[in-house]
């Protein structure tokens, strides 16, 4: 097999060895078991340990499989868990912003709305949980496109449907916007989905910093944007604070 990386193959062999038996193995047992020099085996074990794939018993010094391997096997986050964790933060965001809040996740080439908090004006509003929004024309979608390679892959090459004159329909323009999203840490969509509606979104990450969804504030362009036509900085700050708080509740480290 050309191009196989020796140390990765050896690391895999070590993981298989540790997965094979029930008991924990010491360094020399691992080294002899795989015909490796002790120093080599130790280097690989230490790296695996840093990544959480291997744990070392503090008393005996023996090695066993780490919890991270288990988590890899069940990495997807239940969207209802996401909603339960996000509930208080989304409420607070809607109240602070005075606007509608949505939480979205990637689903079949679009954004699935998994949580919706009404605009706090007690006007008649309909719960939109379960509805879909377009990836390329919403702030939620652009955050997912910017941070989740799967989302960008699923969207394909365009050109995409223009919902308004301001919808971005060409891949080059969209990819440039995504680069900007990554740089700034937030996305906006001003009258790109519906005339008169603007939204601003930020990324929600889990404990391994995987992109699991996005949270956005959405409202009339007159209230979401300032006189210069750009999204008001205070709203951007509120959305980003909420996204960080939800991510922290999902176990992500402070960032």
């Amino acid at each position, binding site marked *: 097999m050309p191009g196989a990386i020796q140390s990765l193959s050896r690391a895999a062999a070590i993981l298989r060895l540790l997965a094979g038996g029930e008991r924990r193995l010491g360094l020399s047992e691992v080294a002899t078991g795989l015909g490796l020099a002790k120093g080599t085996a130790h280097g690989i074990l230490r790296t695996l340990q840093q990544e959480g794939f291997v744990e070392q018993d503090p008393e005996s010094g023996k090695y066993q499989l780490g919890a991270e391997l288990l988590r890899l096997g069940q990495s997807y986050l239940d*969207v209802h868990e996401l909603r339960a964790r996000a509930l208080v933060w989304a409420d607070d965001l809607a*109240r602070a912003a005075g606007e509608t809040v949505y939480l979205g996740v990637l689903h079949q080439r679009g954004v699935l709305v998994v949580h919706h*908090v*009404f605009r706090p004006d007690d006007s008649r509003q309909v719960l939109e949980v379960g509805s879909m929004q377009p990836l390329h024309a919403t702030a939620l979608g652009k955050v997912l496109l910017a941070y989740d390679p799967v989302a960008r892959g699923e969207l394909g090459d365009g050109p995409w449907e223009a919902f308004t004159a301001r919808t971005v329909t060409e891949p080059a323009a969209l990819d440039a916007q995504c680069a900007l999203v990554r740089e700034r840490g937030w996305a906006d969509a001003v009258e790109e989905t519906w005339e008169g509606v603007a939204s601003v979104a930020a990324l929600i990450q889990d404990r391994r910093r995987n992109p699991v969804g996005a949270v956005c504030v959405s409202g009339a362009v007159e209230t979401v944007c300032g006189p210069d036509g750009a999204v008001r900085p205070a709203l951007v700050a509120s959305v980003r604070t909420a996204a960080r708080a939800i991510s922290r509740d999902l176990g992500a480290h402070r960032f």
Partner: protein
Amino acid sequence: MTASHIAAIDQGTTSSRCILFDADGRIVAVEQQEHSQVFPQPGWVEHDAAEIWTRVRSVVRGALERAGLTAADVRAVGITNQRETTVLWDRHTGVPVHHAIVWQDTRTEALCRELGRNVGQDRFRRETGLPLASYFAGPKIRWLLDHVEGLRERAEAGDVLFGTMDSWLIWNLTGGVDGGRHVTDVTNASRTLLMNLHTLQWDERIAESLGVPLAMLPEIRSSAEVYGEAVGDLAGVPVAAALGDQQAALFGQTCFAAGEAKSTYGTGTFLLLNTGEKIVHSYHGLLTTVGFRIGDRPPVYALEGSIAVTGSLVQWLRDQLGIISTAAEIETLAGTVEDNGGAYVVPAFSGLFAPYWRSDARGVITGLTRYVTKGHLARAVLEATAWQTREVVDAMEKDSGVTLTALKVDGGMTSNNLLMQNIADVLDVPVERPYVAETTALGAAYAAGLAVGFWDGLETLRANWHRAAEWTPRMAADTREREHRNWLKAVERTMGWIDQDEQPET
């Protein structure tokens, strides 16, 4: 005085919290600490009231620090508390004479049967609105007087004070042995089996029947008035409200008018319906209780229905059956199917409660066919909470003659979208969730703020209530009727499971 915040102390069954609110009713800071649960024997649950007071002081300090505020920034403090939990303490030393007996504790069941004499459970219902049951404080006081050496003599001499958690906290907050006020509010007093709902005073005849000396009882005050000034971290701040937790949630949900109701969905569920100035006696197994009383205005009464097993049924699916790994996953699983597939779950784990009150019932899963999957069971589990809500609402409508037009919900299970939709469907009324999940603490803050004029009236508070989500009924009427019939059939199948001779000693 420019103080711009209200503090709420929420003394709950597992933890104590202090929450600071601003003038819009928004949360500025929260601090929370758990306290120990003591289980001396099966069915007994106790708390160390001294520990709780330590925790409360600590969360007050913590919340102030977190918000960067001092006592001078706090206009008033309100208290909401686990109801019925009973503590007796020495008025001269401030030391509890025994662990507090928690509402869940069942040690007084035999005593309650004995106190019922030939009349039974309803002996004091007309005066108190309550059945003789082990939850309530009166029998717990009696148990302590009977079982702690020399206590009755000290109580009769006026050396020992009784309180539910509100009284214990107010007494300590206002100085304890050094001039602490010994008071309780009407909502907490209405859970003792000792207060007359009509006079809002201790009922001497009942106190005598229960063997509780009047000398140890606190003065009954309204839910929103200044009881005294705090010392310590909140020095100088008026202690201005007390409400039992469920009544506080009713108040926090701004259910101020007759016919308004709230339902709090947690491990169990508590539904309260405001019946206005009218005392509605229940013939369908509900409790009659005081909803709140603001200063010297007339009291507002409520009907209360509780559902023992709601969130805990989801926990059962997770912990005992292992079908889901987190509570939130039930919605995912239920979402894999269109309907219940003909299956029904009735979680009568320890009998049926309101409106049936059948202790011989046990839980069933019924309607099983080869077709039924775990997805159908998940749906049936959520539907069980919805139908139990429907039964309590039906009972309330029968007792009060009031027809519900909307249900305000709060509590952890409100994050379950499918469940909330299902409740709207089976009740055939909109279900509304407000901002601020902390309706209980908010209720205490509202009452305290009203008492000191921080908020000028109920309408201002109403204007603070905003709908964060609303679920409107979508179920066809004939489907609802068919499902209701099936649910009733399933309930029928739970009854009579336990034979008289194997009734557990309750």
